[in-house]
Structure formats: structure tokens, C-alpha cells
């Protein structure tokens, strides 16, 4: 029996990292929003590593924050370790990484959701989508509740027809032995969606008291931690260290001796696993020459003794897992609290989506996160906020928001997914971005906060603070260009910094361009009266030091943007475009790119095809214009 359970603007199915951002964005934009989860105790759960950030991923968290999302604030409240990575490299690749108290992380997120206006959090398993005339109008849960809505966002993570595999054992399950979502997958298939089968995995967890830390190296957090959110000014969170150890020869022997029991090699796993996150058995087979592999031991929280064994993702049988663990220095007597496993799940082939993350097949239906073929909490959250924003805007009758590749890693990721698709679970890497120098950790606010403000997710107060920062940074850069420093004054500082002496008076800005000099070194010779924060000084330094490179990339962006701005009308019939190669016709008809820029990134579409398309569009526009007259 079914019953009418309520009417909403937007329904979000799944309360993982994508679902939470989606629902919060939609509700904060004023839409009545329902967030459904199979298990209310699993909101914002971290089924794998208890950490957030790192290169590209950390950038995404900053971008989510700049847009007015929650992940940055939430991890800032609940971290138990914070480290800035890549500090020896250029500013574009500095990357913040946090260890989370995984329980505190999910409780804090759940509380935020519960306290948000227009947002209803409810337990229930969505099993069917109600679609009328190609438009989604509601969902039905396992318990027969019918919820009606104008837009639906599906963020099912690894739950869709989830199957856990470990050695010879195999059973239907969501992550961490949760109930899988079986029927929704069938419903999507019925609607005509192409699904892919992907796989991921997680390592075992061990008991802290059974680890001999004396045989490992300590990995402490930063003394002066930075934060993900531009709103977080300080924190008194106590930090816990991680620990580093290595696999041994014995580890490799155990694995090699038991390969016949590994589902990876016995053929039990049909899903495609992520290249960037291979299991330990995979690593040992593929990189047989490597004598040892790093293993990080990471605390899962303050109020638990569980440690996550990073580097040991495996789907070996339980007894072999224990043997592997105990072959590692420091873990000789370890107690395994949970075993590792591989999980297979259904994903939607992401080329079936518009760049707004709305599906092309069903109007008003959006998908975000792992269901779109990605992997990682940050990737999920980054899509989640965009799907939530666009679902809300759809309901409000507004144009979707699309982040360009030159604006953020979120834009790179979504464009990659919807334009090229993915053959294995997609992970963001900084190398996927062509404008890495523009997509820095430090300038996420400059890139995206105006968008966040326009959407209505950034408060007036925060926006004014942002404008103030921008203005002060610009003023300070201009000022440094006018401050002259005499050679005899600068000499001791230059000597100390191993910097070449100057022969004539030089302005502070030019000096700051030298790789070896910093704002802090120059500041005493050019003190500013502006109320500059450390963050602003950092911004000044980066903008001055890398101006040449930044300008070069901006120039490229400007050129390519012209291609992005050339829109392709939706009603174009590619099979009728004379001169296009047949492969291009088919690919273009499949992807239906929104702009010439997007079209040019489709595999199999050549520059000649793009030229022809441009000529055709010009023809089309002139004819349309002539008809209009």
C-alpha cells in the first residue's frame, strides 16, 4: 500500500557527502527540501578513510566553501589533525588535508541539517521514481510513502545494487554492511539510463592498544593549522598524530601465496576498480619490483580506539587480511576490529547528464556523487552542491549555474564527466586542470564567492568581508609598486636570504618577484598602514610573485572562453549538418554539448569538425535572424 506523504520542491535521495551538500544548498535557497536516507545514523558517514582534502580534493572543499557549502565548515569543527601539504612547491598546489573525527564529523553535519530551515531529514529507502511526460514528479519509498516534488537529486553513493566481496565471500550490501538499494537501480534502467558497474575498496581497521607505535614514525599535524573555510578564524581542536610504517617481505609473500583466493584475480569482481586506488594485492602484482609500500595508521576519532590502515585496501579473505596486518612492523600483535572489503555498485554513465547535472533523459532529475562514476567524499560533495543549486534553480525557474573549467576544480570534474565520461571511478587530480595556476587553494573565494553570493548561499556580511579583502589586496599591491628601497638598507636582508645585491633603488614589488624573497622579509622595509591579515599578505605575495605565469594562463582562458561562450542551440540536428564526419555526428548527438568549447573536448570530434560546426552555426544564426525579421 502506498500513501501520500508530502509535497516538496526538491527531494534528495541519500545523505552522504553529495546528498548533504545538495539538500543544504537547496533548502538555503528557499526550496522546501526533503533529505531521505536509508539509515539516519549514517548521515555524512565516512565509510573509508577518515580524512578530507589533499591536492585537488582540498581545493574542491575550498570551492564548496566559497560557494556557501558546508564541508569546509564541518571539517574545521571536527578535525583531529590538519596539515598543509606541498608547502615546498608553488602556491597553486599547496593543499590542506585534515584527519577527521569521523563520528564527530557526521554528528555535526547531521545537527546542521536538522537545524536548517526548509529542510526535512527523514529515514526511508527510495525505490521508485514517478515520471510523467518525461518529467520527474515524485518518488515512492519501500514503506509506501509517496513524496511529490518538482525536482529530485539522486546521490546513492555505492548503495545501488551494492555487493561486498571478500575472498570467497560475496553478499548484497551497501558500504559497511548497510542495506543496499536494489530497486532504484531497476527503476533507472527502466527509464532508459545506461548503467556502469564500478568497484572500490577499503582497508581493515585495527585496535590502537595492539599497535606497537615504537616501530613506526610519527606524523604530526601542523603547529599553526590553517582551515578549509574562509569563515573559520581559529580553532582549539587538539591534534592527534598519524603513524607511518611499511609492508615487509613477509607481507608480499603472504599476498603472493594467497593470490588464488583474491577476488581481483579469481574473476569474482566484474566492476572496474579505480586506477588511483588499487588494493594492496593489485599493487604487489603490478609493481613486483617495489620492495615495500607505505602504510599510514590514522586515528578514526577521539572517542574510539579504531585505527584506519591507509595503503592496505584489500578484498582478500579475512584470515589472509589478518596475516597481512601482522606481517607489518608495529602490527605484529594487532587485533583487527573490522576487515577490509571490495564493494561493487551501479553508476549512471555520466555522459547522460547536462553540465548542470540534470539528466538528459528525465526533466528535473539530477544525479551527483559516486553514482556519477566518481570516487571520494570531496568529489561527491562538489557535485552535490552544484546539483542542489541547480535543482533549486530549476524549481525557481532560473538558469542553471555551471562552473567553468577555468573557475574551479568542480568545473573541471563535471565537464570531464559529462563530456568525456569515465572508464573507472573518477578521482580529481590537479593534473586534470589545464589552468592549475589559476585554480589555487588560496584564491577559491576570489574565483567563486561572487557566484555563491549571486546564488544566495553567501551572506551579505561574508560578501562584504570578501570585497574588503579583495580591495585591500589590490591596494597593497599598488602601494608596493611605489615604495622604493635603497640598496644599503636592503643589503643585510638580501645577504641573509642569499639574494643578489641591488645596485640601484628598487621598488618593493620588483623585489618581491624574486623567488627567494617573501612578503615577511620585505615588510620591515615597506611597512603598510592597511589593516592586512595574514591571509591578505599571502594573497599579495602570490599575486605579485607569479604575475607573469598567471597572466599567461589568463590570456589562454580569455581565448578559450570565447569558444565556451559560443552556445549551440538545443534543437540542432547533427545528422543534417553537411560535412561533419560520421563519428563526430554520432558523438555530438550523444553528448549534445552546450557550447563549441565543450564540443571541442569530446573525444573523436576533430578541429575540422569544429570548424564545420562553427560555419554551420553561423549559417543557422543568419537564417534564424532573417526569419525573425
Amino acid at each position: 500500500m502506498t500513501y501520500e506523504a508530502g509535497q516538496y520542491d526538491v527531494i534528495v535521495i541519500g545523505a552522504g557527502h553529495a546528498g548533504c551538500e545538495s539538500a543544504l544548498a537547496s533548502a538555503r535557497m528557499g526550496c522546501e527540501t526533503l533529505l531521505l536516507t536509508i539509515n539516519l545514523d549514517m548521515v555524512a558517514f565516512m565509510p573509508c578513510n577518515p580524512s578530507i582534502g589533499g591536492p585537488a580534493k582540498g581545493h574542491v572543499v575550498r570551492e564548496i566553501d566559497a560557494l556557501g557549502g558546508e564541508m569546509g565548515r564541518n571539517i574545521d569543527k571536527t578535525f583531529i589533525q590538519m596539515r598543509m601539504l606541498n608547502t615546498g612547491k608553488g602556491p597553486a598546489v599547496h593543499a590542506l588535508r585534515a584527519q577527521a573525527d569521523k563520528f564527530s564529523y557526521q554528528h555535526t553535519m547531521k545537527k546542521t541539517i536538522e537545524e536548517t530551515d526548509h529542510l526535512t531529514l527523514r529515514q526511508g529507502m527510495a525505490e521508485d521514481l514517478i515520471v510523467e511526460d518525461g518529467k520527474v514528479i515524485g518518488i515512492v519509498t519501500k514503506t509506501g510513502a509517496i513524496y511529490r516534488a518538482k525536482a529530485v537529486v539522486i546521490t546513492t553513493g555505492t548503495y545501488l545494487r551494492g555487493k561486498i566481496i571478500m575472498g570467497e565471500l560475496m553478499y548484497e550490501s551497501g558500504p559497511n554492511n548497510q542495506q543496499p538499494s536494489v530497486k532504484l537501480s531497476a527503476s533507472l534502467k527502466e527509464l532508459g539510463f545506461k548503467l556502469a558497474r564500478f568497484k572500490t575498496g577499503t582497508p581493515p581497521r585495527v585496535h590502537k592498544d595492539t599497535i606497537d607505535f615504537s616501530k613506526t614514525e610519527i606524523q604530526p599535524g601542523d603547529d599553526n593549522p590553517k582551515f578549509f573555510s574562509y569563515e573559520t578564524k581559529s580553532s582549539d581542536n587538539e591534534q592527534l598524530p598519524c603513524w607511518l610504517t611499511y609492508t615487509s617481505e613477509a607481507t608480499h609473500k603472504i599476498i603472493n601465496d594467497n593470490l588464488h583466493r583474491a577476488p581481483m584475480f579469481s574473476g569474482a569482481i566484474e566492476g572496474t576498480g579505480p586506477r588511483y586506488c588499487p588494493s594492496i594485492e593489485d599493487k604487489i602484482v603490478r609493481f613486483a619490483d617495489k620492495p615495500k609500500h607505505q602504510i599510514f595508521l590514522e586515528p578514526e576519532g577521539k572517542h574510539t580506539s579504531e585505527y584506519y590502515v591507509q595503503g592496505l585496501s584489500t578484498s582478500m579473505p579475512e584470515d589472509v587480511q589478518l596475516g597481512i596486518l601482522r606481517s607489518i612492523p608495529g602490527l605484529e600483535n594487532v587485533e583487527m576490529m573490522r576487515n577490509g572489503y571490495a564493494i561493487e555498485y551501479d553508476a549512471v554513465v555520466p555522459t547522460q547528464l547536462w553540465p548542470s547535472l540534470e539528466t538528459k533523459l528525465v526533466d528535473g532529475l539530477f544525479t551527483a556523487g559516486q553514482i556519477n562514476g566518481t570516487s571520494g567524499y570531496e568529489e561527491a560533495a562538489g557535485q552535490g552542491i552544484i546539483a542542489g543549486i541547480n535543482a533549486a534553480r530549476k524549481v525557481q525557474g532560473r538558469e542553471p549555474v555551471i562552473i567553468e573549467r577555468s573557475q574551479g576544480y568542480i568545473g573541471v570534474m563535471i565537464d570531464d564527466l559529462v563530456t568525456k565520461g569515465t572508464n573507472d571511478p573518477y578521482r580529481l587530480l590537479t593534473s586534470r586542470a589545464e589552468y592549475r595556476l589559476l585554480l589555487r587553494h588560496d584564491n577559491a573565494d576570489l574565483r567563486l564567492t561572487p557566484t555563491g553570493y549571486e546564488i544566495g548561499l553567501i551572506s551579505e556580511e561574508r560578501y562584504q568581508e570578501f570585497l574588503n579583502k579583495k580591495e585591500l589586496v589590490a591596494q597593497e599591491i599598488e602601494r608596493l609598486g611605489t615604495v622604493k628601497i635603497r640598496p644599503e638598507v636592503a643589503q643585510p636582508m638580501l645577504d641573509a636570504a642569499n639574494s643578489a645585491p641591488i645596485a640601484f633603488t628598487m621598488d618593493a614589488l620588483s623585489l618581491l618577484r624574486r623567488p627567494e624573497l617573501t612578503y615577511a622579509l620585505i615588510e620591515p622595509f615597506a611597512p603598510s598602514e592597511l589593516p592586512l591579515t595574514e591571509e591578505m599578505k599571502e594573497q599579495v605575495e602570490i599575486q605579485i610573485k607569479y604575475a607573469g605565469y598567471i597572466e599567461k594562463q589568463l590570456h589562454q582562458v580569455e581565448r578559450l572562453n570565447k569558444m565556451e561562450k559560443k552556445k549551440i542551440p538545443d534543437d540542432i540536428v547533427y545528422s543534417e549538418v553537411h560535412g561533419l564526419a560520421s563519428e563526430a555526428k554520432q558523438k555530438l548527438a550523444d553528448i549534445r554539448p552546450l557550447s563549441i568549447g565543450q564540443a571541442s573536448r569530446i573525444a573523436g570530434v576533430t578541429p575540422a569538425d569544429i570548424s564545420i560546426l562553427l560555419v554551420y552555426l553561423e549559417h543557422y544564426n543568419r537564417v534564424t535572424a532573417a526569419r525573425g525579421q
Partner: protein
Amino acid sequence: MVHDTIAAISTAIGEGGIAIIRVSGPDAIEGTARIFRSRTDLRDAATHTVQYGHIIDPKSGEEVEEVIVTVMRGPRSFTAEDVVEINAHGGVVAVKKVLDQVLLQDGMRLAEPGEFTKRAFLNGRIDLMQAEAVIDLIRSKSDRAFSVARKQAEGTLSKRIKALRQTVIELLAHIEVNIDYPEHDVEDLTSAYIREQSGSALEEIGKLLKTANEGKILREGIMTAIVGRPNVGKSSLLNMLAQENKAIVTDIPGTTRDVIEEYVTLNHIPLRLLDTAGIRETNDVVEKIGVERSHNALEEADLILFVLNNNEPMHEDDRVLLEKVKDRQLILIINKSDLESKLDMAEINSLIDEERIVRMSVREEEGLDLLEKAISKLFFEGQLDSGDLTYVSNVRHISLLKRAQQSLLDAIEASNAGIPIDLIQIDVRSAWESLGEILGDEVGDSLIDQIFSQFCLGK
């Protein structure tokens, strides 16, 4: 794409006395101005005016070619963009030299097939009725270009570029993995490693570009000047070369208007003999003119054949001339070797390496094989006969190789200056992309593939 600047030779190559290089786009005037020396700065030139001057190599300041340049500011031009047309003398070599210089300028690239027409259409200069014709033009031209490119890419050149690209991508993957996996136990990237990998790639690029030069010589012939005092046997040498080879291909109007070229092949080696008319005239009374013309030809030549008479001591004129050219690509021919030697060999040996001296008797038709060997050694390091040498010949390929070369040099320089690796990556990546463009490869995901096959990463 529509808003960058393109250039191409817009007249059929090798036909007609004048060739036009057309440049169109926002940087057309600025880019050309940087390599154009004349009384009026091109930037200040009024639209639809013609300037006389020289294309120069901006690095050395050397004059590359004498040209006439027309400036047409948009929208009153064929493409409705700023257009510059460079009129050069029609010789293939001259035109390509000019195009090379143009393409080396920032923001310039070689036009795609049909691209000028495409731009003209997109900018509203061509009637709607012709849209289909424009499409056909693009399609047919790019298909043809593609098939040529593919033919070239199937050969040994493609293998070498692929290997080269592999060297660069390994470096690139190493940089990327250092950035994306800072905590992984992969070796830290050192500037020594960057230098080493870039250095070996640069060496290979250098070799390929050298073949470009050899390939050019093979196609167009070695510009050769025969010089010497009257009556040492210059004209006989010419006649012998001409008779030996019935393969006098054509008389081409040359790059300097007065000079006539004659194209002969000496076994495998094509020679373009400069100023042959002048040499012929030395049989006439006005020998002086001949000498003068020889002097002019000297400036142009890739190869100088300096002829001495074995039977006469060195004349002061010989010494002056020899001093002037001894550091050029020169072969000293001691003619009339069948007669008694009156030359001071000690003096000659102090000026010229033994391997660049060839003893011949033109009258007895002896020593031609020695001459051929000496030239081959000078220009092809003696390997001309191996038959399957790789030659980079395509202008586009050459300009992309040069671009890759520059990017790698920038990378090394940046690395030496202590610039962070994520910035060096920009140069390395651009080298990799330039090489990729030669192959027409999908650049796509293969970097990511490389990272994960080269390094063991994971959680």
C-alpha cells in the same frame, strides 16, 4: 580559436616569381612588426599601404629576406580581421624562411586548411549562399592534409617523435605525482633529473631539426657558389657538372634578381649552382664582372667551391678571397692536378683542413667522386646513402619542434632559477603538447594513464 592569429603561404609554392604569406588575426600587425625592419614601423602604417623592408631574425638581427608588406586593418580585409600580407621572392627556401620567422612569434600559429576562408565567412565577409562551399573546402583540405600527415606519421619520424614524447611524459608524470601525491614514497624530483630528462629530449629534438635542414637541402639543393680567379677552371667545372648530369632540372629565377641558378645533382646530392651565368661570362673579355658576381653569390651560398690552379702559385687575390671565406662551408678544389704543382701546400694546409681539399682534373674528368664525398661529409656527415634517414620537412612539424625545444629550454632555465615544480610543469606540459600536435594524437587521458602505470599509488 577564432581569435588567435594565423599565418600561411597563400600562393602555390614554387610557381610564379612572387609568393605571399598571409597573416590574419589580432596579433597580425604586432607580430609581423617585430620581425620587419623598414623605414616605417608597421604598427604605425596606415591601412591598405605597402611598405618595403626586410624580414629579420629578431634574435640575431640578421636580415632573412627582402620583402614588401601590405597592411590591411580589419574590418576592411578579406577576413575582416587585421591582415598582413608579406610578398617575398618566389623561391621555396626564401618563403619558408619568412614563414618560419612569422610562426616563431608569440600568438601565431599555422593556419588550418581553409581557415582564412572560414574566418572570412564567420566574420560576415562571405555570402550565406557560399556556406556549403566553405564547409566543403574545409573538409577536403583537412582530409588531404590529414592523409599527408598520416603518411608522414607512419614512418620513422613518428616513431622518433613518440619516443621523444615518452621521455617528456615520464618527466611530466614524475612532476605530477610529486604534486598530487606529496606523501607517497616516490623519489623527490630534483632539478638534476629535470635537466637530465629535458636534456636528452632536447638532444633528440636537435637531431630532428638538423634533419629538417638536411631534408631541405635534399629537396631544394645546396646553394653552391663556384669561385676563383679567372682561368682556374670554374667554367669547365660547371660544364663538367652539367654534362655529368643530364639532370639540369630547371632555370629558376633566383632570390637575387641578377643571379641565375642551375640545378644539378652530383650523384645523390642536389646542387643549385649560383651565378653560373657570371661564371660563363668569364670566358668573355669582361672578366671583372664575373669576379664581382662571384662575390655577390658568395653571400648567398650554403657551399663554396673555391677553385685553385695546381699549376700556378697562389695569387694575392686568392689569399684575400680565401681569407674571407675560409670559415664558411668551403671545399677547396685544386684543379689541373694532372699538371705540375706550383702551389705552396704548406700554406694551404695551414688555412684549410685536409679533408676539405679535393684534387681534381676537370680536363681529364678526374676527382668528381672525391668532390661528392667531400660535400656529403660536409652536409650529411657522410651518411647520405643510407636511404631511410628521417627527414622533418613539414613547416608545421618544424615549428612545433622548435616550440617544444623552447619550452624545454624554459623548463631547464626555470629549474635552475629555483622556480617551483608546478610552474616548471607548465613548460614541460607545453613541450609534450607541441609534440602531441605533430602526431595529431588525442592528448586526452594518457597523462593520467602514465602516472598510474609509472608509479604505485593508492590508499
